[in-house]
């Protein structure tokens, strides 16, 4: 196994052995550790001292189910703190299969006229990957739905592609890194925190992989791994949320729209209400019914990446059966729907597709547009106006460039007081005044407002892993802490976070999950050990943020959430500061 360094200052590459201290670090644990060790916390995120680190998870590229995640780490231009964003794609397993434990992109060239691509493939004779560079300037300014087919044509065989869209090229705080899905769509995003702009700052437009002939990952204890894998598969296949034709496979993640709406926790019109009348028209059920009507058959969802047996990724079809957008996630249909007062599913799908094409994060985009609506740029409910503004972001007009800075920047430019961000990053689709635990996660995670970092929605709304009252702050700091630590481990394992639904409810599934990891690594971890592993990841990230000037005082929600009661429950965010501070103090 190697650490591969690509230096964009002089376009050279270097192979290093994996140091002993990284022996069990993969995925988020490794990207965060390398960023913490090698990136000066006070550097400019788009400057020569920032680094962009890719690492696949512990079981990625093995036959473990639903485990093809790739983590991307750097200092974030959006939050100024550490960032890990991950995606499900064949790119992750392909990197791991070539035994590249971490790919570190560093430096940046003097000449900023050009963009470059790099092609990494397995050399059978040398029994090692080789790195080549190519001039990618001809693809500059193209959206990723234009550039991807050109790259697929340029390289032979089965390749995987990581790239950036126009948003990254413009250096937006709102810009992701996109990876291919199983149908060669450029649609799987490590979306949050401006990681696309970091890749673009290094003038790197593509990282193309071809793992053909590579040896794959080593499994130390195959019998243990197989035992764990079987338990995981059983748990996923029997749990009603994750089983075939279950909730996720039928309705996708957008199945959550209605339940959050019923619970009064669906942020509506820039976080001014917790319920939206038009919500059902934007939900997973509506996507399923619309597809049935338009294609004449029931369309179940597909896998974003190899080996996923949950298969939650949807596509919305046009009346002529062509594809309108893939994939419409809960977060996306909310950000560009209820959050904007928009209930036209086709227009939402158009916006999702445009975000994917231009390289924008759908959450940051929707929340920015919500703030722009509040600031009077266009009225709430104006979906055509919103589509136009996304085009402006993608084309880099002066207005578009300002919106590309993200929701917090837009709020400052427009004099808006109701700006739903933490540490500069836009809030996702759960209202903290109606779901207190998730508010604690938003406030305290090292990532800036992020639901995935500690998904307390499971017990607070979904009744997964017990049932807790979402409106009560009682015990929620401990809940968020436990979820954050467990998540940091799942993000390091390479599994998609959605395995949490079955393994939190089915004990043998959780056991199998740990056995898989022990099987690959030859470790002897218990459930406590993996939580401790996750907590250690968080401490590393937290220390980076503190050194970057982001201290405990930044672990707060915006003031308006303490002042404005949110209908229908008419509650404010009433979690005391001491409870927020206890999340890390007692870790």
């Amino acid at each position, binding site marked *: 196994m190697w650490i591969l360094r690509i230096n964009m200052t002089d376009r050279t590459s270097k192979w290093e052995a994996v140091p002993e201290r990284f022996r069990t670090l993969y995925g988020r644990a490794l990207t965060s550790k390398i960023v913490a060790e090698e990136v000066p916390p006070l550097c400019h995120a788009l400057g020569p001292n920032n680094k962009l680190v890719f690492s696949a998870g512990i079981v990625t590229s093995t036959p473990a189910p639903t485990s093809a995640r790739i983590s991307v780490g750097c200092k974030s231009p959006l939050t100024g703190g550490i960032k890990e964003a991950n995606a499900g794609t064949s790119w992750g397993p392909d990197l791991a299969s070539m035994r590249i434990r971490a790919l570190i992109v560093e430096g940046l060239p003097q000449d900023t006229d050009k963009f470059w691509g790099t092609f990494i493939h397995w050399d059978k004779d040398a029994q090692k990957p080789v790195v080549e560079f190519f001039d990618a300037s001809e693809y500059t300014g193209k959206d990723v739905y234009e550039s991807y087919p050109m790259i697929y044509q340029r390289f032979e065989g089965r390749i995987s592609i990581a790239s950036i869209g126009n948003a990254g090229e413009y250096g937006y705080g709102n810009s992701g890194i996109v990876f291919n899905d199983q149908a060669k769509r450029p649609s799987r995003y490590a979306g949050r925190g401006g990681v696309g702009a970091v890749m673009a700052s290094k003038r790197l437009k593509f990282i193309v992989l071809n793992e053909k002939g590579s040896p794959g990952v080593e499994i130390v204890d195959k019998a243990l791994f197989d035992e764990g894998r079987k338990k995981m598969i059983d748990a996923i296949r029997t749990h009603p949320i994750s089983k075939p034709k279950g*909730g996720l496979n039928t309705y996708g993640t957008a199945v959550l729209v209605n339940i959050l709406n019923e619970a009064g926790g669906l942020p509506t019109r820039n976080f001014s209400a917790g319920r939206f009348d038009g919500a*059902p028209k934007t939900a997973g*059920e509506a996507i399923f019914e619309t597809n049935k009507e338009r294609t004449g058959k029931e369309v179940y969802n597909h896998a974003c990446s190899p080996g996923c047996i949950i298969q939650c990724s949807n596509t919305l079809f046009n009346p002529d059966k062509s594809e309108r957008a893939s994939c419409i996630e809960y977060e996306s249909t909310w950000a560009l729907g209820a959050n904007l007062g928009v209930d036209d599913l086709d227009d939402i799908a158009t916006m999702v597709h445009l975000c994917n094409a231009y390289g924008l994060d759908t959450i940051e985009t929707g929340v920015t547009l919500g703030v722009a609506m509040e600031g009077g740029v266009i009225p709430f409910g104006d979906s055509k106006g919103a589509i136009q503004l996304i085009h402006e972001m993608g084309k880099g007009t002066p207005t578009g460039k300002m919106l590309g800075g993200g929701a917090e920047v837009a709020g400052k430019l427009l004099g808006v007081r109701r700006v739903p961000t933490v540490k500069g990053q836009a809030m996702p689709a759960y209202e903290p005044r109606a779901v207190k635990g998730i508010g604690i996660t938003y406030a305290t995670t090292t990532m800036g407002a992020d639901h995935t970092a500690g998904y307390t929605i499971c017990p607070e*709304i979904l009744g997964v892993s017990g049932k807790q009252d979402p409106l009560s702050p009682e015990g929620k700091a401990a809940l968020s802490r436990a979820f954050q630590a467990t998540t940091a481990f799942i993000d390091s394992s390479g599994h998609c976070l959605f395995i949490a639904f079955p393994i939190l409810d089915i004990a043998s599934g959780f056991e199998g999950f740990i056995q898989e990891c022990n099987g690959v690594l030859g470790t002897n971890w218990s459930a406590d050990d993996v939580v401790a592993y996750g907590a250690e990841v968080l401490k590393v990230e937290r220390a980076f943020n503190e050194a970057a000037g982001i201290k405990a005082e930044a672990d707060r929600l915006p003031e308006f959430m303490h002042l404005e009661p949110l209908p229908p429950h008419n509650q404010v965010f009433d979690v005391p500061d001491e409870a927020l501070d206890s999340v890390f103090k007692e870790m």
Partner: protein
Amino acid sequence: MQVYVRLFATLRRFVPEAKIGVTLSLELPEGARVRDVMAHYRLPEDEVKLAYVNGIYQEPDFVLHDQDEIGLFPPVGGG
């Protein structure tokens, strides 16, 4: 008394008139519980995971009041 019911995701299979976004109104005797709503629509109890009454999660034996709004869900998850 009169209550209002919405069914979501796979639960709509059991009740043809429960179209997307449609709220059903239902006459129930005083003292009726969430469980009685499930029985009225012949929803198998193990298919109903969550009941929200006026936006608050309630157990099946929760006693309903006139004009209550009830949302029923099978197990759902996402993110």
